[in-house]
């Protein structure tokens, strides 16, 4: 999946330039709250449980300062991605043990009509494997700046 296609799953209300959380659990909740505030999700408890369960499967902190907490849940209707950034970094039990600065939370329904969930995860991993992209994302302050990195413009 190309960045130009990926961008439609991001929305400004699901963007935080400066995450307040300082712990893994709080970071997950802070990002999840964005989905609740925008009414994309109503049952907080079910989705929170799913996200925590996902972390027991293996930390979604994939290293190099990036975490992609994700999962399908019956409590969601659309595939959406929230983005958050922490300058200080948060201990997320990442595979390389390093603090996480860039967070992408991907929430998907039990089945999405266009089967985009796994391609989205793959595309995020690919984009974030590139150092130049990570460096740029660490500096974004606005949603517009953020999207320009995602689309590669």
């Amino acid at each position: 999946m190309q960045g130009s296609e990926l961008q439609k799953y991001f929305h400004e209300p699901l963007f935080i330039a400066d995450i307040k959380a300082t712990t893994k659990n709080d970071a997950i909740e802070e990002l999840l709250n964005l989905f609740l505030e925008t009414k994309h999700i109503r049952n907080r408890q079910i989705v929170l449980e799913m996200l925590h369960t996902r972390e027991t499967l293996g930390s979604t902190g994939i290293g190099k300062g990036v975490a992609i907490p994700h999962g399908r849940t019956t409590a969601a209707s659309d595939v959406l991605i929230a983005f958050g950034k922490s300058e200080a970094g948060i201990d997320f039990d990442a595979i390389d043990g390093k603090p996480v600065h860039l967070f992408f939370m991907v929430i998907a329904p039990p089945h999405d009509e266009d089967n985009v969930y796994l391609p989205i995860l793959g595309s995020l991993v690919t984009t974030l494997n590139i150092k130049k992209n990570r460096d740029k994302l660490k500096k974004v302050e606005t949603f517009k700046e953020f999207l320009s990195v995602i689309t590669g413009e």
Partner: protein
Amino acid sequence: MLKKDLEMLVALQDLDLMIEEADDVEKLGFNITGCSELKNAREELAGRLSKPLLFRYERLRSKLKRAIVPVKNDICLGCFLRQPTSIGTKGREDDEIFTCENCGRMLYWID
């Protein structure tokens, strides 16, 4: 009491979807180490459901892959068919578990 069952079913399905896709997710570059823990959690949760309900869930899963689907704006997100508005009112409030008349999946109202 039954709405609680429905929420347990939703949690069970979320777990099953996660187990099902764990290999695909690992191939994308994620670190997957806790499969056996997840399977244990799944069995523990399944054990808390009544046998007939679990049987109904398993049968739907084997037939349709997704046993419970969200309903949004009166649309069953399993088959994308509109549900009668009258069901929606009951579906949100009643303690009964409703199924889609078209695809047979159990419905979970999310709006």
